[in-house]
């Protein structure tokens, strides 16, 4: 199975808008939303079935047994993540799960064995199984381990889509763990760039990150007419870095309309949709 991952570096450049359009154009039978912190793809993919949900258990975190706790405070003293709080009323210390990193120091330091580590539900994996396989997930607020959930989203898609030869993955913004987890094992990356000073800065960072994995990379520019000078800069940059520049998409209020009606930009006739259509034709020749 060949996999195309859509990334951006900066948020809001149009990753999901472009990814959803490519899914429709390519008629991909398998796709995934790896932006587990803020999944959006489900809003425009017209699911016909309810998803199957599985609990996602993240990194184990500490829990204090308040009946055993003697309030010596050693755990709080040693915790480097400010995750332990004293509750005078309940006569115990307790763990803030948003701050706890699951290191286990409090467990070993506690003189009375009042602390143990336990995996909690950190989110939900969702699988839509119909004529197409759509794998996605939602991470609970404040959870740390999004990389692992991203890996599970991809794994779920690959396990279910056995006879599929092409899949598209909507990635997440940034350059951190979830992005790196999503790049692993894909064949192609399409970067959706924005022609602004912040967009270029973020694009350079994501390209540097992606290049460590030696994946074939394409670049396109969205909302290119907001600044054609910067768009040209991006195209030059792509040439210098030997990355393939595959097209420009205009700013299009029709796109907003389509999205808000739960459609992709190729479900209606609009300028941005036509531009993505051309980008798809260019990419198709390289797959």
């Amino acid at each position, binding site marked *: 199975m060949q996999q195309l991952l859509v990334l951006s570096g900066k948020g809001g450049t149009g990753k999901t808008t472009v990814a959803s359009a490519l899914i429709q154009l390519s008629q991909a039978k398998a796709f995934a939303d790896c932006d587990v912190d803020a999944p959006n793809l489900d809003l425009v993919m017209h699911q016909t079935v309810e998803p199957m949900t599985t609990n996602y258990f993240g990194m184990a975190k500490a829990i204090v047994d308040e009946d055993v706790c003697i309030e010596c405070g050693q755990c709080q003293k040693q915790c480097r993540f400010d995750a332990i709080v004293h509750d005078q009323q309940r006569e115990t210390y307790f763990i803030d799960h948003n701050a706890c990193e699951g*290191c286990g120091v409090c467990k070993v330091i506690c003189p009375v064995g009042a602390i143990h580590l336990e995996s909690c539900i950190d989110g939900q994996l969702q699988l839509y199984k119909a004529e197409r396989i759509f794998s996605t997930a939602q991470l609970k607020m404040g959870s740390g381990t999004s990389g692992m959930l991203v890996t599970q989203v991809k794994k779920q898609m690959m396990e279910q889509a056995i006879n599929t030869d092409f899949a598209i993955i909507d990635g997440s913004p940034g350059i951190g763990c979830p992005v790196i987890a999503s790049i692993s094992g894909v064949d192609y990356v399409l970067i959706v760039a924005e022609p*602004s000073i912040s967009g270029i*800065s973020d694009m350079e960072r994501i390209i540097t990150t992606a290049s460590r994995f030696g994946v074939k990379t394409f670049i396109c520019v969205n909302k290119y007419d907001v600044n054609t000078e910067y768009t040209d800069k991006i195209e030059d940059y792509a040439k210098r870095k030997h990355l393939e520049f595959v097209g420009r998409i205009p700013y299009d209020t029709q796109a907003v309309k389509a999205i808000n009606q739960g459609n992709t930009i190729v479900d209606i006739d609009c300028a941005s949709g036509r531009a993505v259509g051309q980008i798809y034709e260019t990419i198709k020749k390289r797959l």
Partner: protein
Amino acid sequence: MKIAVLSGKGGTGKTLVSVNLASVAEKASYVDCDVEEPNGHLFFKPMIEHVESVKVKIPKINNEKCTGCRKCVDFCRFNALAYVNHSVKVFEDVCHSCGGCMLVCPENAITESDKPIGRIERGISEKVQVHTGILNMGEASGVPIVKQLLKNDTREDELVIIDAPPGSACIVMESIKDADYCVLVAEPTIFGTQNLSMVHELVELFEIPFGVVLNKCLDEDNPAESYCNDHKINIIGKINYSQDLAVLSSRGEIVSRIDPQYQTIFKLILEHIVEEVGYATTSRT
């Protein structure tokens, strides 16, 4: 007073709002906590006065004292230690700096040394003190940088505008936890609204007073506005989409510094917030 500007989703205009709120104030600090992709400094272009490294602690093994008991290897939940060739090997990129291996070693064979994970650049742009956090590429967590950015004690009357990272993960929580007010920036799409509901949940959880700025407004129905109305959320500002604004922003211009119309818009938003925080403080006493 600390005001944190956040959005569930990237690209809604968090930086536009935070940079301009800081610029229209009499005097303010702007703190960029989006350490993976800091952007505020591209607008301020501050004169840098000070750069400081942000470091975390990494274990250092004294192999002469080490007896190969492997208690440290077995303890580490992040698999940052391995025992090979009769010595303990440390993997810095997965170490969480918890200090636990040092505690469990029965031979005192483990000490700690510093590893830089990023830096903070501090500078000035007109009346704004600009503090930018930058995470080195490849590093796992920017939380230590945010902690250091927000560590400085600020006086009550100082205005601090915090540009939070997108999303609602730990680093966002770290950025907003001591804020007096949160500005949620929303764009008029269903994508933006879905993510607005996430940060809405977050600020309710932290019990911080908040309001919404609707950005990139068009003439169409605005799902984010409907969401605010449905949930009785205070809308403290509306910025219409304008090609001119988009172009100026793309060039890294601070619009309130060059266009009086925007200066007024952001001044009104800031006044609104100050009033609300004042009200919230008095009603809490």
